C-alpha cells in the first residue's frame, strides 16, 4: 500500500514591488474556499495567516525541481483568477515557498509559447 505525499505548502505574500523570480506551472487538482478551522476561528484577521476570502489551490507541478510533486497554496480570493480542477496555473514565486501571484494559463497554449507568455506577465 502506498500513500500520496502531503502537498508542499506554499504561502502567499504581497508583491511589495517585486516581480516573480520564477513560476511554478501546476495542473490544478482541487480549488476550494478555505474552511477556516474549527468554528471558523482561524478566519480571525488577527491571526497572521488569515486572508480575506481565503481560497485553497492544490495542484501537481509539471516541471522543474518540484516536478511531479503536489503543492498547496492559500491565497486571497480576490487575487485568484477563475480556476477549476484541471486548469493550468502559473504561480509567481519570489522564493521557494512564497507566491505573489496566480495566473491562469490560457487553455490550449502551446508549450513553446509558454515562456514568452510568462515573460510578458506582471504581478502586483
Amino acid at each position, binding site marked *: 500500500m502506498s500513500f500520496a505525499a502531503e502537498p508542499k505548502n506554499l504561502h502567499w*505574500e*504581497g*508583491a*511589495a514591488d517585486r516581480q516573480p523570480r520564477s513560476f511554478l506551472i501546476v495542473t490544478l487538482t482541487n*480549488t*476550494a*474556499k478555505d474552511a*477556516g*478551522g*474549527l468554528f*471558523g*476561528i*482561524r*478566519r*480571525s*484577521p*488577527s*491571526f*497572521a*495567516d*488569515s*486572508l*480575506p*476570502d*481565503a*481560497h485553497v489551490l492544490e495542484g501537481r507541478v509539471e516541471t522543474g525541481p518540484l516536478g511531479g510533486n503536489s503543492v498547496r497554496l492559500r491565497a*486571497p*480570493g*480576490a*487575487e*485568484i483568477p*477563475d480556476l477549476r480542477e484541471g486548469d493550468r496555473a502559473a504561480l509567481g514565486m519570489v522564493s521557494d515557498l512564497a507566491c505573489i501571484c496566480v495566473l491562469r494559463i490560457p487553455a490550449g497554449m502551446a508549450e513553446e509559447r509558454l515562456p514568452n507568455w510568462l515573460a510578458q506577465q506582471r504581478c502586483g
Partner: protein
Amino acid sequence: MADIVIDFHKGPPKIGLIVRGKQGPDHHPDKLAQHADTILGDGSPEGFFGEGNDGSLNALGLGMQGVVYDYALLRLHRAWYVDKASAVTNRVVSTVLLIDVDQPTADKFKDAWDKMTTSPGDFNIVGGNCATHASAAFIAAGVVSKTIPWMDTPDNLYQQLVDNLPAGRVVSYTGYIGFKTNPSGGYDMEITPYVASPAVAAPNPGSSGSLSTAGGSGNSSSS
C-alpha cells in the same frame, strides 16, 4: 467622494486606531471579523498578530507567538491593510480614529510599540489579542487610563476612545486605507471613503463573522 490624504507632519501630532472590518462609526463587526492596528505619530501603521498553527491550542488562538507587523511586514503579509488598491481589490474596509495628542504622548505611544516589537510575548484570542496590545499602548501613552471595558475587541477599544476623549480631539474616517511614504519621513495615510450601498459589493468580512463574502448584495464568491 474624493480620496482623503492625511499628512502626519501637518497640524498637531496625531496617533490613531484602525479597526479593520468596521464599516462606519456605528457599525459593530462580528467578533471574529475585526482587527486592531494603530498609527504612530509619523503615520507608521503598527499591529499585533498571532502566529502558529501546529495543531495545539494555538489552532484555537491560544498561546500563539505574538508578532508586531510594521509597514514593511504589513506590506508582505497584509498588503490590503497598507496598499489602498489592494484594500479595494480585496474589499477590506477599515474605520480609523485619529486622536490629536502632544509630542510627548506620541513619543510614549511609539516607545510602547517599540517595546512590543522587541518582546511581543504571546498572542491569545481573549485577553492578549490585537486590541489588548493596542490598548496597552494607548494606556502607556496616557491617552486612556483603563483597559477596554467588557470584552477586549477592537470595536470596544474604538468606543472607549470615543467615549472618553473630547470630541474636538478625535476624527473618524471609514474607507479603503493605504499608506505612502512621506518625503519628510514616516507615511501619509490615504483613504478612499466607503459608503454602503446596494450598488457596492459588500466588504470583506461578511456578516457571518468570518472573512468570507457571505451576506450583502453584489458579492462575488467563488465558493
